[in-house]
């Protein structure tokens, strides 16, 4: 690396050793952990979800330009769970199997499989003999029952093993008498305790014998990392058989008597209201219909704006759809009736945070209202020779975070009690919000958490559970409430439209400063992070002057390269609940990182360096560098490619992990113009190489799946997937309108390399790949066409490639030609090439 002359004094940015790798795995003293033996008919043990030594108080480092490097969102999630957690328990059943009820959601991310592996490892039992179920809402766990920020694995890793180790210890002690051997000579494997002499006794015979008659504290040690046999090996999902046979039960598949199908007629504009229903009796008399009732759909009880709608309960969902569409409703206005993409863009630009780095040109004085989130680096350019500056704005349009399973909830609110089934990522919040809108205490509300059909942040909000509870209370009957796909697009949570402005200056081959100012429609974090951040605010070096969104931004945003003086700014427009917003598989990095990496490629080009070399020279984290080198070698960086095909590469750190993504994008006409009815075809990602380092990978198979999913989402973010806001509502009304990555967009070649363990603790993975993949695809596309895209997805402003469905009546009627229209629906238009 060329010698640097730096004039701006910056806080040192030595590669920050990942906390998980502090201390060599084998060289650590064996720590002892506290748990509880619980009085029960068979062996039961419990631990606090706080039993992790790494959670012991440690002084936070002093503020640095990018706080997320030393204290990121996963730390926040862990810290706020620390003082409040109660016990999670493992039970050894009479048949020798082990049960664990995990206070997390399972929506496809594989946390139940991971938990089963941790238990199997520690106890010496087959993974398939560990049965992990999802816990009901447990208010006593407070913050410690949420599934977000990719923190699940990080937070359960030690506590679950401690419980399993305690259980194993009890089994071994009980076996010692039977086997006539000393406990320390015994080992466990395959669900049996074995003596040195070769005799053995199965857990089934020990479950009752090892039971405790009184609950008491107990101490245990954990199996050393270098003895792991299960952790780090590929394991299939615990529910793969159920999933491929149709036996897996999602909320709408549950047998809850009398919970009849229920759907909602929603207003034609976002957060509109019902003024009157003009044919109530008529619709009540329609075939199959049992009830029609107006409800509030206020998603933020007691906090924000109000909206309302009309719910229909019927014998089948088909009859709900027909009845919803037959309703003659006079609608009041909505929350954003005058807003469209263009008006939002204007307002975002007007609120662009001010430039804070000195610049040789005139300063951009656009009127920002909030301070930059990092300190202005005054004097950055003092003494630097001739400085050149590049400056670019990027626009990111609305994106839907809808999963395949729509928003669903079953509610039975009768006799002063409410029983709810919904795949909530935050069941305790759901429980307390339901109690609030029903006028009950949380104790009167039970929230069961079935496995979800995808979550991606949408199920961090209780919208549908509130709908169901309100309808059930109003009519006094159980309901099985499902959002129609059209509701998912229009009334569902969206990732807010935002702009990112990047200014970088360089002198010769040195990057002198890099400044990024991000301005967004407000994101609603109130239900997920709000209370947590407030409770931790005192510990964060920067929290007080900042808004909640700025705090979240700062905890997740970072620049992985040494790019001179760095300043990051965040601003937003509107109140948190003007639009229904949330995260989409990731918080900010699917916008923030592509804008940044595209400019990094620009810098490399201007300085005359290869994009890979430029990054390798400047990447600051050793693990990230190793990931980059791996994709360089495995993905064959720089190989000869025909004109119109190019590679892009990016490295990214988040959630205690690092990931490098190298992609190839083919923009040649033969590829981009391929004709598949109703598809967004266009440029195609043809090859992907990912190298991921999460510290200690627990289940490489699950980790690879998470990386692949993140890549698919990244492809949608660049090329295909967005919502168009027009006059107060989104135009998209279903899949095919909303263009998430499909088989025709998916890369034919994708290779995920799981880096060898770099630490003794796991990092999160659910969101890790999204920002990196989005950025890598954008960079490859820019290089393939020789022009940097600045608006995402790239086709958003070019066309609305589908026939817009009416908003009144609110639901698209089901076709009747399904026997002949297979596979292509009759409504499919020609293919759309977003790059044309």
């Amino acid at each position, binding site marked *: 690396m060329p010698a640097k002359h730096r004039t701006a004094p910056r806080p040192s940015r030595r590669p920050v050793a990942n906390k998980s790798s502090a201390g060599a795995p084998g060289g650590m003293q064996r720590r002892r952990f506290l748990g509880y033996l619980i009085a029960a008919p068979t062996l039961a043990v419990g631990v606090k979800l706080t039993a992790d030594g790494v959670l012991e108080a440690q002084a936070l480092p002093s503020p640095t330009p990018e706080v997320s490097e030393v204290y990121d969102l996963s730390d926040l999630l862990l810290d706020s769970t620390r003082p409040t957690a109660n016990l999670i328990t493992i039970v050894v059943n009479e048949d020798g199997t082990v049960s664990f009820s995990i206070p997390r959601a399972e929506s496809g991310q594989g946390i139940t499989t991971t938990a089963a592996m941790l238990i199997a490892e520690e106890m010496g039992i087959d993974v398939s003999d560990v049965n992990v179920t999802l816990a009901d809402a447990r208010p006593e766990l407070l913050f410690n029952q949420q599934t977000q920020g990719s923190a699940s694995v990080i937070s359960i890793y030690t506590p679950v093993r401690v419980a399993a180790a305690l259980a194993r210890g009890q089994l071994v002690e009980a076996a010692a008498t039977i086997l006539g051997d000393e406990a320390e000579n015994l080992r466990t494997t395959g669900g049996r305790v074995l003596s040195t002499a070769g005799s053995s006794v199965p857990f089934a015979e020990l479950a009752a014998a090892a039971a405790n008659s009184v609950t008491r504290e107990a101490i245990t040690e954990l199996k050393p990392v270098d003895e792991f046999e299960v952790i780090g090996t590929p394991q299939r999902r615990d529910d793969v058989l159920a999933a491929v046979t*149709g036996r897996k039960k999602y909320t709408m598949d549950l047998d809850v008597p009398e919970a009849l199908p229920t759907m909602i007629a929603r207003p034609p504009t976002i957060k509109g209201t019902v003024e009157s229903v003009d044919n109530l009796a008529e619709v009540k008399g329609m075939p199959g219909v049992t009830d029609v009732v107006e409800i509030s759909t206020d998603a933020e009880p007691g906090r924000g704006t109000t909206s309302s709608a009309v719910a229909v309960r019927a014998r089948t969902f088909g009859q709900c759809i027909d009845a919803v569409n037959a309703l003659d409703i006079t609608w009041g206005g909505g929350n954003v009736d005058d807003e469209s993409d263009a008006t939002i863009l204007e307002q975002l630009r007007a609120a662009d945070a001010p430039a804070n780095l000195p610049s040789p040109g005139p300063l951009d004085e656009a009127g920002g209202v909030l301070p930059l989130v990092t300190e202005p680096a005054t004097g950055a350019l003092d003494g630097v020779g001739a400085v050149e500056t590049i400056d670019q704005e990027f626009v990111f349009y609305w994106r839907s975070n809808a999963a395949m399973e729509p928003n669903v909830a079953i509610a039975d609110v009768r006799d002063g009690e409410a029983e709810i089934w919904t795949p909530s990522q935050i069941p305790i919040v759901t429980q307390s919000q339901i109690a609030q809108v029903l006028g009950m205490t949380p104790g009167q509300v039970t929230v069961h958490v079935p496995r979800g059909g995808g979550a991606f942040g949408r199920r961090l909000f209780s919208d549908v559970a509130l709908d169901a509870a309100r309808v059930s209370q109003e009519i006094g009957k159980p309901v099985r409430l499902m959002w129609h796909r059209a509701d998912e697009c229009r009334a569902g949570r969206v990732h807010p439209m935002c702009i990112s402005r990047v200014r970088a200056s360089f002198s010769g081959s040195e990057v002198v400063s890099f400044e990024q100012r991000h301005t967004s429609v407000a994101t609603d974090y109130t239900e997920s992070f709000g209370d947590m951040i407030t409770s931790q605010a005192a510990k964060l070096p920067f929290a007080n002057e900042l808004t909640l969104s700025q705090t979240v931004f700062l905890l997740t945003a970072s620049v992985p390269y040494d790019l001179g003086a760095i300043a990051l700014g965040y601003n937003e427009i509107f109140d948190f609940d003007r639009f229904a917003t949330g995260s989409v598989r990731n918080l900010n990095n699917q916008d923030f990182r592509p804008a940044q990496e595209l400019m990094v490629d620009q810098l490399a080009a201007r300085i005359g360096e290869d994009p890979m070399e430029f990054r390798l020279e400047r990447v600051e984290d050793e693990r990230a560098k190793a990931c980059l080198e791996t994709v360089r070698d495995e993905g064959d960086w720089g190989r000869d490619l025909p004109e119109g095909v190019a590679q892009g590469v990016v490295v990214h750190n988040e959630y205690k992990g690092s990931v490098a993504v190298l992609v190839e994008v083919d923009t040649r006409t033969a590829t981009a113009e391929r004709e*598949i009815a109703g598809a967004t075809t266009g440029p195609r990602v043809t090859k992907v190489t990912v190298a991921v380092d999460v510290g200690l990978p627990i289940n490489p198979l699950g980790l690879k799946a998470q990386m692949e999913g993140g890549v698919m989402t990244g492809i949608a973010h660049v090329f295909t997937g967005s919502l168009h806001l027009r006059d107060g509502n989104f135009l998209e009304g279903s899949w095919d309108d909303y263009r998430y990555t499909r088989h025709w967009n998916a890369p034919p070649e994708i290779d995920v390399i799981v880096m060898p363990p770099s630490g003794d603790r796991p990092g999160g993975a659910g969101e890790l790949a999204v920002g990196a993949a989005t950025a890598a695809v954008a960079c490859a596309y820019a290089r393939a066409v020789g022009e940097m895209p600045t608006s995402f997805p790239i086709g958003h402003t070019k066309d609305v490639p589908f026939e817009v469905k009416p908003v009144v009546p609110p639901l698209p009627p*089901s076709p009747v030609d*399904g026997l002949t229209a297979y596979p292509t629906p009759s409504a499919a238009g020609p293919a759309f090439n977003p790059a044309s």
Partner: protein
Amino acid sequence: MPPHTFKVNGRPVTVEVEDDVRLLWVLRDLLKINGPKYGCGINVCKACTSHINGRAFNPCSVPVGQIRPTDEITTIEGLPDTVGADLHPMQEAWIDRDVPQCGYCQPGQIMAAVDLVKKVQAEGGSVTDDDIDEIRNMCACGTYARIREAIKQGAENM
């Protein structure tokens, strides 16, 4: 309400419901056959894909009145029986490749894959990447890469 009689997964059924109710709701809400999933209700997401007389179709877009007494509907639950085994080779490939994440789209993906492979095999060919590109089944978890591998693997045993 007219009665409708047809066969589902080898078993004769009779349901009383209006003619225009789409078959998906008859299967799910009335017969409690929950393998076919709802994802859109308008024949675009393909989560409900099942078979009628051995060919794929989307029951969300077929009024039950169009189903004849001789029609045989197969949902994911009945797929293994069509080959007289505990699992269809496509399901085995799906397990081997650990395809699902949340799993919600997978019954539809498998039913579509089986139909596609049967079709290309009947034409004397074998399934290609181009064929797979045209499968319309949505997966919001992004399991497409593993689906692609599993289809090729499953096809070898079909």
